[in-house]
């Protein structure tokens, strides 16, 4: 008689708390939002409108202009992070992992500290530093004779978004640094020694041996940056307010969503259009992550030590 396979109840029991909590605080609200975006008010009553909210968002020039502007700004915000934050993070990690560097622990801590600061503090401090009236930036530039280079960056349409992106880079550069640093430390000494035996040292060693080994970490960092940037909101809100001035030059999807969903000043919140924007954001992030998972991660080569 074949032995009956026992039902392994303990698996379900151990998974249950996490599944329940995650369902309650993530999955249910997510579907709630998707559901909300399919309704709208008609003479005070909530009616099902299908995809009409999306037609408004993408079809009505008033909505779509604001949406594409926010998406474009968001893309630029992400590009700056990818081009500045992540390379600097890798570079700092490479320097920190060098055995000849003294006081590595101090640098590591100093560079990581801004990451644990609140957005409110970072936004406020940088606003003060860059202030044309009280800030130290004009004074410092003046001291080296470059006063002419100073501009009220946060108030100019052409510079504001880049300035804020760089402030965000300053704040978060510690995260890629730490992740890459950990990845570099996990490279076995034998591999490094073998490389040295073959005469691969210095920068060549970094490019040819270490970089390929930390590529999966860089990939994860890119995804984290992507998700973080497309959900960003706090820094812009703190420094420029919900109207994301000057002239919506710093408006990203997060601030656009906030204004629409919760309202602003005399503008009364519109949860239905807000949910529509949130759904569009969810779609964009989902597409980006899927692209990474299927197109990039499957091609990354992994090395087993």
């Amino acid at each position, binding site marked *: 008689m074949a032995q009956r396979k026992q039902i392994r109840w303990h698996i379900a029991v151990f998974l249950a708390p996490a599944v329940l909590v995650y369902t309650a605080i993530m999955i249910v609200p997510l579907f709630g939002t998707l559901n909300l975006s399919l309704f709208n008010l008609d003479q005070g009553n909530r009616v099902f409108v299908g995809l009409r909210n999306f037609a408004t968002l993408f079809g009505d020039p*008033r909505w779509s202009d604001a949406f594409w502007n926010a998406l474009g700004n968001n893309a630029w915000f992400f590009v700056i992070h990818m081009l500045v934050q992540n390379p600097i993070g890798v570079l700092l990690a490479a320097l920190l992992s060098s055995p000849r560097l003294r006081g590595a622990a101090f640098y590591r801590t100093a560079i990581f500290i801004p990451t644990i600061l609140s957005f409110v503090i970072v936004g406020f401090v940088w*606003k003060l530093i*860059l*202030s*044309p*009236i*009280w800030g130290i930036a*004009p004074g410092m530039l003046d001291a080296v004779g470059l006063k002419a280079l100073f*501009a*009220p*960056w*946060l*108030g*100019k*349409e052409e510079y504001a978004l880049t300035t804020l992106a760089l402030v965000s880079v300053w704040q978060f550069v510690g995260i890629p640094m730490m992740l890459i640093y950990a990845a570099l430390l996990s490279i076995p000494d034998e591999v490094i020694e073998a490389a040295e035996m073959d005469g691969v040292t210095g920068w060549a060693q970094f490019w040819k041996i270490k970089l390929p080994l930390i590529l999966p970490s860089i990939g994860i960092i890119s995804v984290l940056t992507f998700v973080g940037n497309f959900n960003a909101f706090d820094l812009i809100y703190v420094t*420029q*307010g919900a*109207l994301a*001035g*000057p*002239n*919506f030059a710093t408006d990203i999807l997060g601030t656009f969503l906030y*204004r629409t969903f919760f309202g*602003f*000043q*005399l*503008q*009364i919140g*519109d949860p239905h*259009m807000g949910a529509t924007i949130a759904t569009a954001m969810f779609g964009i992030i989902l597409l980006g992550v899927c692209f990474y998972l299927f197109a990039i991660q499957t091609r990354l080569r992994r090395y087993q030590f």
Partner: protein
Amino acid sequence: MTKTIRYALLASTLLSGAAWAEDVTLTIESWRNDDLAIWQEKIIPAFEAANPGIKVVFAPSAPAEYNAVLNSKLDAGSAGDLVTCRPFDASLELFNKGKLADLSDMAAMANFSDVAKSAWQTDDATKTFCVPMASVIHGFIYNRAIFDELGLTPPKTEAEFFAALEKIKANGTYIPMAMGTNDQWEAATMGYQNIGPNYWKGEEGRKALIAGTSSLTDEAWVAPFRQLAKWKDYLGDGFEAQTYPDSQNLFTLGRAAIYPTGSWEIGVFGPQIGGAFEMGAFPPPVAADGDKCYISDHTDIAMGMNAATKHPEQTKKFLEWVGSSEFATLYANALPGFFSLNSAAVEMADPLAKEFVSWRETCEPTIRSTYQILSRGTPNLENETWNASANVIKGTETPEDAAKRLQDGLASWYEPQKK
């Protein structure tokens, strides 16, 4: 030992509860938590002394949370008897949902002008649901020490206004005007809404816009933008990144000569300046000498009755008192810069507040043009005005383009403006 004390305390609580039981306690919902001390020490004692048997408790919540807190309390039936009313749509919505009582037939309503009541009425002005308390007046505050030093007098006309700015600029010691565009609302509220009523002729223009007989591209509505465009040259270096607190500090530190503003700053600036210099004020300049002047006398705060109150009689009694000249005098003096809307003249002690309120005698009052009805749709006219005013001051959008954009936005959803 401690047990005895506890019982004693419990007994005294019960007893005192019983002793007050014959009194009616009214609770006020408000967002003015800054004013808690003034209500507890000055206003409520004055009412209680005159009306034995009614106790009043002032229970404010944080300004940013007030609307949400009030809505949920009203829905749950736990809101206070008296409700402090935000102007226009926020309160109108509560009235339409039956949460606020109709107060049209109160005797105290006769003490208020139509403009004063307009913020708390139905669109057709047949029903009033809150007793107006206070308004704020827009104008310009100036540093009298700088004016004396440069031999300037408060300008009356546009030409004099720009001549004064030019003179301060030529002297080079001071920033002619403290204003920044970073926060945007300064440009719209202290710029456009401040000087605008002189051009669109106050209520006449505002009502014509609501009726659809005039449009934002008419000269009356573009002209204020043309004026704002000229302000750029007289603002401080880097005004594009200057915030509202920056502007306040520039003025109170004596580094700027003129500050376009509203009367609510009086109570804030006085202690900050601490007597370092004297402040003066002048109303928005008119186009030519002798022109009729208009000021923005914006209705800001009122009080209504929770429709579900258990003590309607006592609540109305309190509201009648809020509509009286006695309350007006108390309130206006406790909070200089928040002016009573009562038609009866109110004696005030603060000279700057007196200066502001004296304009009511010569100028026609109006309210901010975007507040009533016109900011109900998408795009929101008030928010768009912030953006447009900031753009015009910075020079990134011409007055005509800005006006056209506002008009197109308004006409896209507001029936009377669709042509």
